[in-house]
Protein backbone atom coordinates (compact mmCIF):
# COMPACT_ATOMS: atom_id res chain seq x y z
CA UNK A 1 0.00 0.00 0.00
CA UNK A 2 2.15 2.95 1.20
CA UNK A 3 5.85 2.48 0.55
CA UNK A 4 8.36 5.10 1.64
CA UNK A 5 11.99 4.42 0.86
CA UNK A 6 14.99 6.43 2.08
CA UNK A 7 13.02 9.69 2.00
CA UNK A 8 14.88 12.99 2.48
CA UNK A 9 12.93 16.21 3.00
CA UNK A 10 14.19 19.77 3.38
CA UNK A 11 12.28 22.73 4.73
CA UNK A 12 13.74 26.14 3.96
CA UNK A 13 17.07 24.53 3.14
CA UNK A 14 17.21 22.60 6.43
CA UNK A 15 17.20 18.86 6.31
CA UNK A 16 14.32 17.53 8.45
CA UNK A 17 13.56 14.00 7.20
CA UNK A 18 16.85 12.20 6.74
CA UNK A 19 16.45 8.83 5.10
CA UNK A 20 13.10 7.54 6.29
CA UNK A 21 11.92 4.10 5.25
CA UNK A 22 8.46 2.84 6.11
CA UNK A 23 5.98 0.39 4.68
CA UNK A 24 2.29 0.22 5.58
CA UNK A 25 0.58 -2.77 3.92
CA UNK A 26 -3.11 -2.68 3.00
CA UNK A 27 -5.38 -3.44 5.92
CA UNK A 28 -2.95 -2.20 8.56
CA UNK A 29 -2.82 0.74 10.91
CA UNK A 30 0.62 2.01 11.85
CA UNK A 31 1.38 4.55 14.51
CA UNK A 32 4.20 7.04 14.40
CA UNK A 33 5.27 8.42 17.71
CA UNK A 34 8.05 10.80 18.47
CA UNK A 35 9.11 13.89 20.37
CA UNK A 36 8.11 17.39 19.34
CA UNK A 37 10.05 18.62 16.35
CA UNK A 38 10.96 15.10 15.24
CA UNK A 39 9.56 15.72 11.77
CA UNK A 40 6.19 13.95 12.04
CA UNK A 41 4.18 16.78 10.48
CA UNK A 42 6.94 17.36 7.94
CA UNK A 43 6.54 13.76 6.81
CA UNK A 44 2.77 14.16 6.43
CA UNK A 45 3.17 17.38 4.42
CA UNK A 46 5.84 15.88 2.19
CA UNK A 47 3.58 12.90 1.45
CA UNK A 48 0.62 15.15 0.58
CA UNK A 49 2.70 17.57 -1.50
CA UNK A 50 2.71 20.82 0.41
CA UNK A 51 4.79 23.57 -1.15
CA UNK A 52 8.01 24.31 0.70
CA UNK A 53 8.46 20.71 1.84
CA UNK A 54 11.04 19.70 -0.68
CA UNK A 55 11.73 16.04 -1.26
CA UNK A 56 15.42 15.89 -2.14
CA UNK A 57 15.82 12.14 -2.16
CA UNK A 58 14.05 8.79 -1.91
CA UNK A 59 10.68 7.53 -3.09
CA UNK A 60 7.09 7.35 -1.88
CA UNK A 61 4.42 5.30 -3.62
CA UNK A 62 0.78 4.52 -2.89
CA UNK A 63 -0.43 1.30 -4.46
CA UNK A 64 2.46 1.61 -6.87
CA UNK A 65 1.67 5.20 -7.93
CA UNK A 66 4.57 7.61 -7.48
CA UNK A 67 3.11 10.18 -5.09
CA UNK A 68 5.98 12.60 -5.44
CA UNK A 69 5.27 13.49 -9.05
CA UNK A 70 1.59 14.28 -8.42
CA UNK A 71 -0.06 17.57 -7.47
CA UNK A 72 -1.70 17.62 -4.02
CA UNK A 73 -5.20 17.29 -5.52
CA UNK A 74 -4.09 14.34 -7.65
CA UNK A 75 -2.75 12.60 -4.57
CA UNK A 76 -6.10 13.25 -2.88
CA UNK A 77 -7.93 11.72 -5.85
CA UNK A 78 -5.72 8.63 -5.50
CA UNK A 79 -7.22 8.30 -2.05
CA UNK A 80 -4.64 10.00 0.16
CA UNK A 81 -6.11 12.02 3.03
CA UNK A 82 -4.40 14.07 5.71
CA UNK A 83 -6.20 15.02 8.87
CA UNK A 84 -4.30 18.21 9.70
CA UNK A 85 -2.68 18.85 13.05
CA UNK A 86 -3.90 22.45 12.66
CA UNK A 87 -6.95 22.50 10.35
CA UNK A 88 -7.36 25.75 8.39
CA UNK A 89 -10.31 28.11 8.53
CA UNK A 90 -11.84 28.87 5.13
CA UNK A 91 -13.88 32.05 5.53
CA UNK A 92 -16.92 32.49 3.34
CA UNK A 93 -17.03 28.90 2.08
CA UNK A 94 -19.83 26.89 3.69
CA UNK A 95 -18.69 23.47 4.90
CA UNK A 96 -21.17 21.57 2.75
CA UNK A 97 -20.29 23.52 -0.41
CA UNK A 98 -16.65 22.83 0.27
CA UNK A 99 -17.18 19.11 0.79
CA UNK A 100 -19.43 18.62 -2.20
CA UNK A 101 -16.90 20.45 -4.35
CA UNK A 102 -14.09 18.28 -2.99
CA UNK A 103 -16.01 15.03 -3.40
CA UNK A 104 -17.05 15.83 -6.95
CA UNK A 105 -13.56 17.01 -7.90
CA UNK A 106 -12.13 13.69 -6.67
CA UNK A 107 -14.79 11.71 -8.50
CA UNK A 108 -14.16 13.66 -11.68
CA UNK A 109 -10.41 13.03 -11.42
CA UNK A 110 -11.15 9.31 -11.12
CA UNK A 111 -13.50 9.38 -14.09
CA UNK A 112 -16.63 8.90 -11.96
CA UNK A 113 -19.85 10.88 -12.25
CA UNK A 114 -20.95 13.63 -9.91
CA UNK A 115 -22.89 12.72 -6.80
CA UNK A 116 -26.45 14.08 -6.93
CA UNK A 117 -27.44 16.76 -4.45
CA UNK A 118 -30.01 14.58 -2.63
CA UNK A 119 -27.51 11.71 -2.39
CA UNK A 120 -24.90 14.07 -1.06
CA UNK A 121 -27.26 15.58 1.48
CA UNK A 122 -28.24 12.14 2.73
CA UNK A 123 -24.62 11.03 2.93
CA UNK A 124 -23.53 14.18 4.73
CA UNK A 125 -26.35 13.87 7.27
CA UNK A 126 -25.71 10.19 7.97
CA UNK A 127 -22.01 10.74 8.52
CA UNK A 128 -22.63 13.84 10.63
CA UNK A 129 -24.91 11.94 12.97
CA UNK A 130 -22.29 9.28 13.62
CA UNK A 131 -19.59 11.81 14.42
CA UNK A 132 -21.63 14.24 16.47
CA UNK A 133 -21.30 17.00 13.89
CA UNK A 134 -24.26 19.37 14.28
CA UNK A 135 -26.24 20.84 11.36
CA UNK A 136 -25.08 24.25 12.57
CA UNK A 137 -21.43 23.25 12.12
CA UNK A 138 -22.13 22.09 8.55
CA UNK A 139 -23.78 25.36 7.60
CA UNK A 140 -21.04 27.61 8.90
CA UNK A 141 -18.03 28.56 6.80
CA UNK A 142 -15.54 25.73 7.10
CA UNK A 143 -13.91 25.64 10.54
CA UNK A 144 -14.50 29.36 11.09
CA UNK A 145 -14.85 30.04 14.78
CA UNK A 146 -14.61 26.34 15.67
CA UNK A 147 -12.80 25.26 18.82
CA UNK A 148 -9.71 23.08 18.45
CA UNK A 149 -11.78 19.99 19.27
CA UNK A 150 -14.53 20.89 16.82
CA UNK A 151 -11.96 21.32 14.08
CA UNK A 152 -10.56 17.85 14.74
CA UNK A 153 -14.03 16.36 14.71
CA UNK A 154 -14.64 18.14 11.42
CA UNK A 155 -11.46 16.64 9.98
CA UNK A 156 -12.69 13.14 10.70
CA UNK A 157 -16.11 14.07 9.37
CA UNK A 158 -14.52 15.15 6.10
CA UNK A 159 -12.46 11.97 6.07
CA UNK A 160 -15.52 9.76 6.54
CA UNK A 161 -17.37 11.60 3.80
CA UNK A 162 -14.55 11.47 1.26
CA UNK A 163 -13.86 7.82 2.11
CA UNK A 164 -10.12 7.79 1.32
CA UNK A 165 -7.96 4.69 0.89
CA UNK A 166 -4.99 5.88 2.86
CA UNK A 167 -5.37 8.13 5.87
CA UNK A 168 -2.75 10.11 7.75
CA UNK A 169 -3.95 11.40 11.11
CA UNK A 170 -1.62 14.08 12.44
CA UNK A 171 -2.17 14.47 16.20
CA UNK A 172 -5.91 14.08 15.83
CA UNK A 173 -6.16 13.52 19.59
CA UNK A 174 -4.87 16.94 20.58
CA UNK A 175 -7.70 19.24 21.59
CA UNK A 176 -10.19 16.41 22.12
CA UNK A 177 -11.64 15.60 25.52
CA UNK A 178 -12.14 11.96 26.44
CA UNK A 179 -15.74 11.73 25.19
CA UNK A 180 -14.92 13.37 21.88
CA UNK A 181 -11.88 11.13 21.57
CA UNK A 182 -14.12 8.07 21.83
CA UNK A 183 -16.56 9.33 19.21
CA UNK A 184 -13.78 10.28 16.83
CA UNK A 185 -11.95 6.99 17.37
CA UNK A 186 -15.10 5.03 16.59
CA UNK A 187 -15.43 7.04 13.41
CA UNK A 188 -11.85 6.29 12.48
CA UNK A 189 -12.16 2.59 13.29
CA UNK A 190 -15.22 2.34 11.07
CA UNK A 191 -13.01 3.42 8.16
CA UNK A 192 -10.56 0.57 8.62
CA UNK A 193 -10.76 -2.12 6.00
CA UNK A 194 -8.79 -4.78 4.19
CA UNK A 195 -7.94 -2.46 1.27
CA UNK A 196 -7.25 0.58 3.41
CA UNK A 197 -4.29 1.84 5.35
CA UNK A 198 -3.66 4.35 8.10
CA UNK A 199 -0.77 6.24 9.59
CA UNK A 200 -1.66 7.57 13.02
CA UNK A 201 0.74 10.24 14.22
CA UNK A 202 0.57 10.91 17.90
CA UNK A 203 2.49 12.12 20.82
CA UNK A 204 0.64 10.12 23.40
CA UNK A 205 -0.31 6.53 23.89
CA UNK A 206 -3.86 7.59 24.87
CA UNK A 207 -5.21 7.62 21.29
CA UNK A 208 -3.79 4.15 20.65
CA UNK A 209 -6.04 2.69 23.35
CA UNK A 210 -8.93 3.53 21.05
CA UNK A 211 -7.35 3.11 17.64
CA UNK A 212 -5.34 -0.09 17.99
CA UNK A 213 -2.30 -0.05 15.73
CA UNK A 214 -0.76 -3.11 14.09
CA UNK A 215 2.71 -1.56 14.30
CA UNK A 216 4.29 1.32 16.19
CA UNK A 217 7.28 3.28 14.90
CA UNK A 218 9.39 5.85 16.65
CA UNK A 219 10.40 8.88 14.60
CA UNK A 220 13.33 10.83 15.97
CA UNK A 221 15.82 13.06 14.21
CA UNK A 222 14.13 12.53 10.87
CA UNK A 223 14.40 8.74 10.83
CA UNK A 224 12.50 5.71 12.07
CA UNK A 225 14.67 4.69 15.02
CA UNK A 226 12.57 1.88 16.43
CA UNK A 227 9.61 -0.26 15.42
CA UNK A 228 7.52 -2.80 17.26
CA UNK A 229 4.06 -3.99 18.17
CA UNK A 230 1.49 -2.05 20.23
CA UNK A 231 3.54 -2.80 23.37
CA UNK A 232 6.17 -0.32 22.13
CA UNK A 233 3.70 2.52 22.64
CA UNK A 234 3.17 1.46 26.24
CA UNK A 235 6.91 1.35 26.83
CA UNK A 236 7.26 4.84 25.38
CA UNK A 237 4.49 6.09 27.61
CA UNK A 238 6.39 4.80 30.64
CA UNK A 239 9.94 5.74 29.65
CA UNK A 240 9.62 8.72 27.28
CA UNK A 241 11.78 9.34 24.24
CA UNK A 242 15.04 9.92 26.09
CA UNK A 243 16.62 6.69 25.05
CA UNK A 244 16.31 7.67 21.37
CA UNK A 245 18.29 10.87 21.82
CA UNK A 246 21.46 9.00 20.92
CA UNK A 247 19.92 7.47 17.82
CA UNK A 248 18.71 10.86 16.65
Amino acid at each position, binding site marked *: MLNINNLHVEVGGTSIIKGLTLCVPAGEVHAIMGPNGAGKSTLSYAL*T*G*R*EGYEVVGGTATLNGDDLLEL*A*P*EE*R*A*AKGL*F*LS*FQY*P*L*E*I*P*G*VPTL*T*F*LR*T*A*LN*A*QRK*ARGEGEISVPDFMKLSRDVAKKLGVTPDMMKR*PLNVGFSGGEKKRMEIY*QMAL*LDPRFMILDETDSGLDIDALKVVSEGVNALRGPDKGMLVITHYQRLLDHIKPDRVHVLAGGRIVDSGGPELALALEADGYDRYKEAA
Partner: protein
Amino acid sequence: MSLAELTLSPGEAALLNVFPPTEAGDAARVHLRAAGLPNRRVEAFKWTDLRAALAEGIPQADGSAGLIPECLKDALVLDFAPEGFGLEGDKDQGLIIETEDSLELEGAGPLAMIAAGFAPRAVVLRVTQRQSRPIVLRRHPGAPMRIRLELEAGTQLTLIDTALATAGLSTGLMEIEIGAGAELVRYSLQNGDARAIDLANAEVSVASEGRYQAISLMFGGKLARAETHVTLAGEGASCLIQGAYLLSGTTHADMTTKVMHTSPNGQTRELFKGAVQDRARSVFQGKILVERAAQKTDARQNHHALMLSEGAEIDAKPELEIYADDVQCAHGNTIGALDDQALFYMRQRGIPEAQAKSLLVEAFVTEVFDAIELEGVRNWFSSMARAWLEVSSS
Protein backbone atom coordinates in the same frame (compact mmCIF):
# COMPACT_ATOMS: atom_id res chain seq x y z
CA MET B 1 -3.06 77.70 -18.97
CA SER B 2 -4.18 79.85 -21.90
CA LEU B 3 -6.19 78.50 -24.79
CA ALA B 4 -3.30 78.83 -27.17
CA GLU B 5 -0.98 76.71 -25.05
CA LEU B 6 -3.16 73.64 -24.69
CA THR B 7 -2.78 71.14 -27.47
CA LEU B 8 -5.77 68.86 -27.59
CA SER B 9 -5.32 65.14 -28.10
CA PRO B 10 -7.30 63.46 -30.91
CA GLY B 11 -9.70 62.20 -28.23
CA GLU B 12 -10.22 65.65 -26.76
CA ALA B 13 -10.71 67.13 -30.21
CA ALA B 14 -13.24 64.40 -31.05
CA LEU B 15 -15.16 65.09 -27.84
CA LEU B 16 -15.58 68.73 -28.76
CA ASN B 17 -17.58 67.59 -31.77
CA VAL B 18 -19.58 65.04 -29.81
CA PHE B 19 -21.01 67.55 -27.35
CA PRO B 20 -24.39 68.72 -28.69
CA PRO B 21 -25.19 72.44 -29.06
CA THR B 22 -26.80 72.75 -25.66
CA GLU B 23 -25.88 74.94 -22.70
CA ALA B 24 -24.25 72.01 -20.96
CA GLY B 25 -22.54 71.02 -24.20
CA ASP B 26 -21.14 74.52 -24.57
CA ALA B 27 -19.97 74.57 -20.97
CA ALA B 28 -18.22 71.23 -21.45
CA ARG B 29 -16.56 72.51 -24.61
CA VAL B 30 -15.25 75.61 -22.86
CA HIS B 31 -13.99 73.52 -19.98
CA LEU B 32 -12.32 70.99 -22.25
CA ARG B 33 -10.60 73.64 -24.37
CA ALA B 34 -9.26 75.29 -21.23
CA ALA B 35 -8.26 72.34 -19.09
CA GLY B 36 -8.26 69.28 -21.32
CA LEU B 37 -9.41 65.93 -19.98
CA PRO B 38 -8.54 64.99 -16.41
CA ASN B 39 -5.16 63.27 -16.38
CA ARG B 40 -2.54 61.95 -14.00
CA ARG B 41 -1.29 65.44 -13.17
CA VAL B 42 -4.64 66.13 -11.52
CA GLU B 43 -4.63 64.73 -7.97
CA ALA B 44 -8.10 63.14 -8.13
CA PHE B 45 -7.15 61.42 -11.40
CA LYS B 46 -3.55 60.51 -10.69
CA TRP B 47 -4.27 56.81 -11.08
CA THR B 48 -6.99 57.15 -13.71
CA ASP B 49 -5.72 59.06 -16.67
CA LEU B 50 -8.70 59.83 -18.87
CA ARG B 51 -6.65 61.88 -21.31
CA ALA B 52 -4.36 58.90 -21.94
CA ALA B 53 -7.32 56.53 -22.30
CA LEU B 54 -8.85 58.76 -24.95
CA ALA B 55 -5.52 59.74 -26.55
CA GLU B 56 -6.26 58.02 -29.81
CA GLY B 57 -9.83 59.19 -30.10
CA ILE B 58 -13.17 57.88 -28.95
CA PRO B 59 -13.41 54.10 -29.32
CA GLN B 60 -16.07 52.87 -31.72
CA ALA B 61 -19.20 51.79 -29.84
CA ASP B 62 -19.85 48.06 -29.90
CA GLY B 63 -21.80 45.39 -28.06
CA SER B 64 -25.28 45.51 -26.60
CA ALA B 65 -26.91 46.99 -23.54
CA GLY B 66 -27.33 43.51 -22.09
CA LEU B 67 -30.44 41.55 -21.20
CA ILE B 68 -32.74 42.32 -18.33
CA PRO B 69 -32.60 39.34 -15.98
CA GLU B 70 -35.75 37.38 -15.17
CA CYS B 71 -35.87 38.78 -11.64
CA LEU B 72 -36.42 42.28 -13.06
CA LYS B 73 -39.06 41.41 -15.66
CA ASP B 74 -41.60 43.67 -13.93
CA ALA B 75 -39.23 46.60 -13.78
CA LEU B 76 -39.68 49.82 -15.70
CA VAL B 77 -36.73 50.03 -18.10
CA LEU B 78 -35.26 53.32 -19.23
CA ASP B 79 -32.94 52.88 -22.19
CA PHE B 80 -30.24 55.37 -23.01
CA ALA B 81 -29.02 54.81 -26.55
CA PRO B 82 -26.99 57.08 -28.84
CA GLU B 83 -30.21 57.78 -30.81
CA GLY B 84 -32.02 58.88 -27.69
CA PHE B 85 -33.98 57.81 -24.68
CA GLY B 86 -36.66 55.12 -24.55
CA LEU B 87 -39.03 53.66 -22.02
CA GLU B 88 -40.34 50.12 -21.66
CA GLY B 89 -42.68 48.55 -19.16
CA ASP B 90 -45.36 49.74 -16.79
CA LYS B 91 -45.12 52.81 -14.67
CA ASP B 92 -46.44 52.87 -11.14
CA GLN B 93 -48.43 55.67 -9.61
CA GLY B 94 -46.37 58.36 -7.97
CA LEU B 95 -43.68 58.47 -10.60
CA ILE B 96 -43.36 61.45 -12.90
CA ILE B 97 -41.00 61.29 -15.85
CA GLU B 98 -40.07 64.37 -17.84
CA THR B 99 -37.19 65.48 -19.99
CA GLU B 100 -35.39 68.78 -19.73
CA ASP B 101 -33.29 70.29 -22.47
CA SER B 102 -31.28 72.52 -20.22
CA LEU B 103 -30.59 71.86 -16.64
CA GLU B 104 -28.04 73.70 -14.59
CA LEU B 105 -25.13 71.77 -13.16
CA GLU B 106 -23.86 73.07 -9.87
CA GLY B 107 -20.33 72.79 -8.57
CA ALA B 108 -19.63 69.49 -10.29
CA GLY B 109 -16.27 67.95 -11.12
CA PRO B 110 -14.84 67.29 -14.59
CA LEU B 111 -16.55 63.90 -15.03
CA ALA B 112 -19.96 65.39 -14.34
CA MET B 113 -19.21 68.25 -16.75
CA ILE B 114 -18.32 65.82 -19.50
CA ALA B 115 -21.34 63.61 -18.84
CA ALA B 116 -23.70 66.60 -18.71
CA GLY B 117 -22.18 68.01 -21.87
CA PHE B 118 -22.46 64.70 -23.70
CA ALA B 119 -26.17 64.21 -22.87
CA PRO B 120 -28.54 66.06 -25.24
CA ARG B 121 -31.10 66.31 -22.44
CA ALA B 122 -31.76 65.22 -18.91
CA VAL B 123 -34.43 62.79 -17.81
CA VAL B 124 -36.09 63.97 -14.64
CA LEU B 125 -37.74 61.40 -12.39
CA ARG B 126 -39.91 62.56 -9.53
CA VAL B 127 -41.01 60.03 -7.00
CA THR B 128 -44.04 61.18 -5.04
CA GLN B 129 -45.10 57.78 -3.70
CA ARG B 130 -43.30 54.67 -2.61
CA GLN B 131 -42.40 52.57 -5.69
CA SER B 132 -42.70 48.81 -5.48
CA ARG B 133 -41.58 48.39 -9.08
CA PRO B 134 -37.83 48.78 -9.61
CA ILE B 135 -36.47 51.04 -12.34
CA VAL B 136 -33.68 49.87 -14.61
CA LEU B 137 -31.41 52.41 -16.28
CA ARG B 138 -29.58 50.85 -19.22
CA ARG B 139 -26.66 52.62 -20.81
CA HIS B 140 -26.19 51.40 -24.38
CA PRO B 141 -22.78 51.33 -26.06
CA GLY B 142 -21.61 54.83 -26.84
CA ALA B 143 -24.55 56.48 -25.10
CA PRO B 144 -24.77 59.33 -22.64
CA MET B 145 -27.18 59.31 -19.73
CA ARG B 146 -28.23 62.14 -17.53
CA ILE B 147 -30.77 61.59 -14.82
CA ARG B 148 -32.18 63.86 -12.19
CA LEU B 149 -33.96 61.93 -9.52
CA GLU B 150 -36.03 63.46 -6.77
CA LEU B 151 -37.46 61.32 -4.02
CA GLU B 152 -40.07 63.16 -2.04
CA ALA B 153 -40.19 62.76 1.71
CA GLY B 154 -40.96 59.24 2.88
CA THR B 155 -40.79 57.61 -0.55
CA GLN B 156 -38.74 54.62 -1.60
CA LEU B 157 -37.27 53.46 -4.89
CA THR B 158 -35.01 50.67 -6.12
CA LEU B 159 -32.85 51.56 -9.07
CA ILE B 160 -30.66 49.25 -11.13
CA ASP B 161 -28.20 50.86 -13.49
CA THR B 162 -26.14 48.90 -15.98
CA ALA B 163 -23.31 49.79 -18.33
CA LEU B 164 -22.40 46.66 -20.28
CA ALA B 165 -21.03 48.01 -23.56
CA THR B 166 -18.27 45.94 -25.07
CA ALA B 167 -16.69 49.08 -26.51
CA GLY B 168 -17.20 52.80 -26.84
CA LEU B 169 -17.53 55.79 -24.56
CA SER B 170 -20.59 55.84 -22.34
CA THR B 171 -21.33 58.30 -19.59
CA GLY B 172 -23.79 58.43 -16.76
CA LEU B 173 -24.62 61.39 -14.60
CA MET B 174 -27.14 61.01 -11.83
CA GLU B 175 -28.15 63.93 -9.70
CA ILE B 176 -30.13 62.55 -6.82
CA GLU B 177 -32.09 64.26 -4.11
CA ILE B 178 -33.37 62.04 -1.35
CA GLY B 179 -36.06 63.71 0.74
CA ALA B 180 -36.64 63.42 4.46
CA GLY B 181 -37.10 59.80 5.49
CA ALA B 182 -36.93 58.66 1.86
CA GLU B 183 -34.74 55.81 0.66
CA LEU B 184 -33.01 55.07 -2.60
CA VAL B 185 -31.60 51.59 -3.13
CA ARG B 186 -29.27 51.40 -6.09
CA TYR B 187 -27.60 48.39 -7.67
CA SER B 188 -24.99 49.06 -10.34
CA LEU B 189 -23.34 46.70 -12.76
CA GLN B 190 -20.51 47.61 -15.08
CA ASN B 191 -18.73 45.38 -17.57
CA GLY B 192 -16.68 46.10 -20.64
CA ASP B 193 -13.68 44.93 -22.57
CA ALA B 194 -10.44 46.73 -23.31
CA ARG B 195 -12.16 49.16 -25.72
CA ALA B 196 -14.86 50.35 -23.33
CA ILE B 197 -14.71 53.60 -21.41
CA ASP B 198 -17.43 54.21 -18.87
CA LEU B 199 -17.68 57.33 -16.76
CA ALA B 200 -20.35 57.21 -14.08
CA ASN B 201 -21.01 60.00 -11.69
CA ALA B 202 -23.57 60.21 -8.91
CA GLU B 203 -24.18 63.44 -7.00
CA VAL B 204 -26.38 62.56 -4.06
CA SER B 205 -27.91 64.72 -1.38
CA VAL B 206 -29.77 63.13 1.52
CA ALA B 207 -32.21 65.00 3.79
CA SER B 208 -32.89 64.15 7.43
CA GLU B 209 -33.45 60.48 8.18
CA GLY B 210 -33.11 59.75 4.47
CA ARG B 211 -31.00 56.91 3.18
CA TYR B 212 -28.87 56.19 0.13
CA GLN B 213 -27.88 52.57 -0.34
CA ALA B 214 -25.68 51.60 -3.29
CA ILE B 215 -24.12 48.26 -4.12
CA SER B 216 -22.05 47.81 -7.24
CA LEU B 217 -20.14 45.22 -9.20
CA MET B 218 -17.47 46.33 -11.64
CA PHE B 219 -15.41 44.36 -14.14
CA GLY B 220 -13.66 47.45 -15.51
CA GLY B 221 -12.82 48.29 -19.10
CA LYS B 222 -10.18 50.27 -20.90
CA LEU B 223 -11.17 52.71 -18.22
CA ALA B 224 -14.18 52.64 -15.94
CA ARG B 225 -14.68 55.15 -13.21
CA ALA B 226 -17.61 55.27 -10.84
CA GLU B 227 -17.56 58.42 -8.84
CA THR B 228 -20.02 58.99 -6.04
CA HIS B 229 -20.43 62.15 -4.02
CA VAL B 230 -22.86 61.96 -1.16
CA THR B 231 -23.84 64.82 1.11
CA LEU B 232 -25.61 63.72 4.24
CA ALA B 233 -27.27 67.07 4.59
CA GLY B 234 -30.06 66.38 7.06
CA GLU B 235 -29.87 65.14 10.63
CA GLY B 236 -29.78 61.36 10.89
CA ALA B 237 -29.20 60.83 7.17
CA SER B 238 -27.32 57.67 6.28
CA CYS B 239 -25.63 55.93 3.42
CA LEU B 240 -24.33 52.48 2.65
CA ILE B 241 -21.93 52.27 -0.27
CA GLN B 242 -20.56 48.88 -1.18
CA GLY B 243 -18.71 47.65 -4.22
CA ALA B 244 -17.11 44.50 -5.54
CA TYR B 245 -14.68 44.39 -8.41
CA LEU B 246 -13.06 41.64 -10.43
CA LEU B 247 -10.47 42.72 -12.93
CA SER B 248 -8.36 40.76 -15.39
CA GLY B 249 -6.39 41.33 -18.57
CA THR B 250 -5.55 45.01 -18.88
CA THR B 251 -8.82 46.39 -17.51
CA HIS B 252 -9.04 49.34 -15.20
CA ALA B 253 -11.74 50.17 -12.68
CA ASP B 254 -11.85 53.18 -10.41
CA MET B 255 -14.18 53.61 -7.46
CA THR B 256 -14.01 57.10 -6.08
CA THR B 257 -16.33 58.11 -3.27
CA LYS B 258 -16.69 61.19 -1.20
CA VAL B 259 -19.16 61.34 1.64
CA MET B 260 -19.74 64.63 3.41
CA HIS B 261 -21.40 64.69 6.78
CA THR B 262 -22.78 68.15 7.32
CA SER B 263 -25.43 67.43 10.00
CA PRO B 264 -25.47 65.52 13.29
CA ASN B 265 -26.22 61.83 13.77
CA GLY B 266 -25.35 60.73 10.27
CA GLN B 267 -24.16 57.24 9.46
CA THR B 268 -21.89 55.98 6.69
CA ARG B 269 -21.01 52.37 5.91
CA GLU B 270 -18.58 51.74 3.09
CA LEU B 271 -17.22 48.37 2.05
CA PHE B 272 -15.28 47.68 -1.13
CA LYS B 273 -13.74 44.31 -1.95
CA GLY B 274 -12.05 43.16 -5.09
CA ALA B 275 -9.55 40.93 -6.80
CA VAL B 276 -7.18 41.95 -9.54
CA GLN B 277 -5.17 39.70 -11.81
CA ASP B 278 -2.96 39.75 -14.91
CA ARG B 279 -2.05 43.38 -15.61
CA ALA B 280 -5.33 44.90 -14.49
CA ARG B 281 -5.55 47.84 -12.15
CA SER B 282 -8.02 48.91 -9.51
CA VAL B 283 -8.29 52.29 -7.91
CA PHE B 284 -10.12 53.01 -4.69
CA GLN B 285 -10.30 56.57 -3.44
CA GLY B 286 -12.59 57.00 -0.49
CA LYS B 287 -12.98 60.19 1.40
CA ILE B 288 -15.20 60.82 4.36
CA LEU B 289 -15.46 64.39 5.52
CA VAL B 290 -17.15 65.22 8.79
CA GLU B 291 -17.94 68.88 9.26
CA ARG B 292 -17.88 70.55 12.66
CA ALA B 293 -21.69 70.56 12.82
CA ALA B 294 -21.90 66.82 12.18
CA GLN B 295 -21.59 65.66 15.78
CA LYS B 296 -22.35 62.01 16.61
CA THR B 297 -21.41 60.93 13.14
CA ASP B 298 -20.80 57.20 12.85
CA ALA B 299 -18.73 56.42 9.78
CA ARG B 300 -16.90 53.30 8.74
CA GLN B 301 -14.99 52.63 5.59
CA ASN B 302 -13.29 49.43 4.49
CA HIS B 303 -11.45 48.44 1.37
CA HIS B 304 -9.91 44.99 1.04
CA ALA B 305 -8.31 43.67 -2.10
CA LEU B 306 -6.64 40.53 -3.35
CA MET B 307 -3.71 40.73 -5.70
CA LEU B 308 -3.89 37.58 -7.83
CA SER B 309 -0.93 38.26 -10.16
CA GLU B 310 2.35 40.04 -9.71
CA GLY B 311 1.68 42.34 -12.66
CA ALA B 312 -1.60 43.58 -11.22
CA GLU B 313 -1.92 46.90 -9.47
CA ILE B 314 -4.15 48.11 -6.67
CA ASP B 315 -4.09 51.76 -5.69
CA ALA B 316 -5.97 52.83 -2.61
CA LYS B 317 -6.36 56.17 -0.92
CA PRO B 318 -8.62 56.12 2.10
CA GLU B 319 -9.10 59.51 3.71
CA LEU B 320 -10.89 60.68 6.82
CA GLU B 321 -11.16 64.38 7.42
CA ILE B 322 -12.90 65.17 10.69
CA TYR B 323 -13.75 68.55 12.16
CA ALA B 324 -16.33 67.44 14.75
CA ASP B 325 -15.12 66.14 18.11
CA ASP B 326 -17.84 63.71 19.17
CA VAL B 327 -17.76 61.16 16.34
CA GLN B 328 -17.00 57.51 15.69
CA CYS B 329 -14.99 57.08 12.53
CA ALA B 330 -12.87 54.17 11.42
CA HIS B 331 -11.36 52.89 8.26
CA GLY B 332 -9.43 49.84 7.18
CA ASN B 333 -7.53 49.06 4.04
CA THR B 334 -5.75 45.80 3.21
CA ILE B 335 -4.13 44.44 0.09
CA GLY B 336 -2.92 40.87 0.12
CA ALA B 337 -2.53 37.62 -1.72
CA LEU B 338 -4.61 34.47 -1.40
CA ASP B 339 -3.80 32.41 1.67
CA ASP B 340 -1.33 29.68 0.59
CA GLN B 341 -2.16 27.51 3.56
CA ALA B 342 -5.88 27.61 2.83
CA LEU B 343 -5.13 26.76 -0.80
CA PHE B 344 -3.07 23.73 0.17
CA TYR B 345 -5.75 22.58 2.57
CA MET B 346 -8.36 22.72 -0.18
CA ARG B 347 -6.10 20.94 -2.66
CA GLN B 348 -5.41 18.21 -0.11
CA ARG B 349 -9.15 17.56 -0.14
CA GLY B 350 -8.99 17.07 -3.90
CA ILE B 351 -10.03 20.51 -5.16
CA PRO B 352 -7.81 21.52 -8.11
CA GLU B 353 -5.76 24.66 -7.60
CA ALA B 354 -7.68 26.88 -10.04
CA GLN B 355 -11.01 25.86 -8.53
CA ALA B 356 -9.71 26.37 -5.00
CA LYS B 357 -8.58 29.88 -5.93
CA SER B 358 -11.97 30.63 -7.47
CA LEU B 359 -13.80 29.48 -4.36
CA LEU B 360 -11.63 31.64 -2.13
CA VAL B 361 -11.95 34.73 -4.32
CA GLU B 362 -15.71 34.23 -4.66
CA ALA B 363 -16.10 33.92 -0.91
CA PHE B 364 -13.99 37.03 -0.48
CA VAL B 365 -15.80 39.41 -2.81
CA THR B 366 -19.38 38.20 -2.57
CA GLU B 367 -19.55 39.36 1.03
CA VAL B 368 -20.36 42.70 -0.58
CA PHE B 369 -23.58 41.25 -2.03
CA ASP B 370 -24.93 40.11 1.34
CA ALA B 371 -26.50 43.55 1.70
CA ILE B 372 -28.56 43.15 -1.51
CA GLU B 373 -32.14 42.70 -0.40
CA LEU B 374 -33.61 41.63 -3.76
CA GLU B 375 -32.71 37.95 -3.89
CA GLY B 376 -32.85 37.85 -7.69
CA VAL B 377 -30.39 40.71 -8.01
CA ARG B 378 -28.12 39.14 -5.40
CA ASN B 379 -28.07 35.89 -7.38
CA TRP B 380 -27.56 37.79 -10.62
CA PHE B 381 -24.50 39.60 -9.25
CA SER B 382 -23.14 36.40 -7.68
CA SER B 383 -23.52 34.47 -10.91
CA MET B 384 -21.78 37.27 -12.84
CA ALA B 385 -18.90 37.05 -10.38
CA ARG B 386 -18.82 33.25 -10.68
CA ALA B 387 -18.79 33.42 -14.47
CA TRP B 388 -15.83 35.79 -14.33
CA LEU B 389 -14.02 33.39 -12.00
CA GLU B 390 -14.67 30.44 -14.28
CA VAL B 391 -13.29 32.24 -17.32
CA SER B 392 -10.36 33.87 -15.61
CA SER B 393 -9.15 30.76 -13.81
CA SER B 394 -9.25 28.49 -16.85
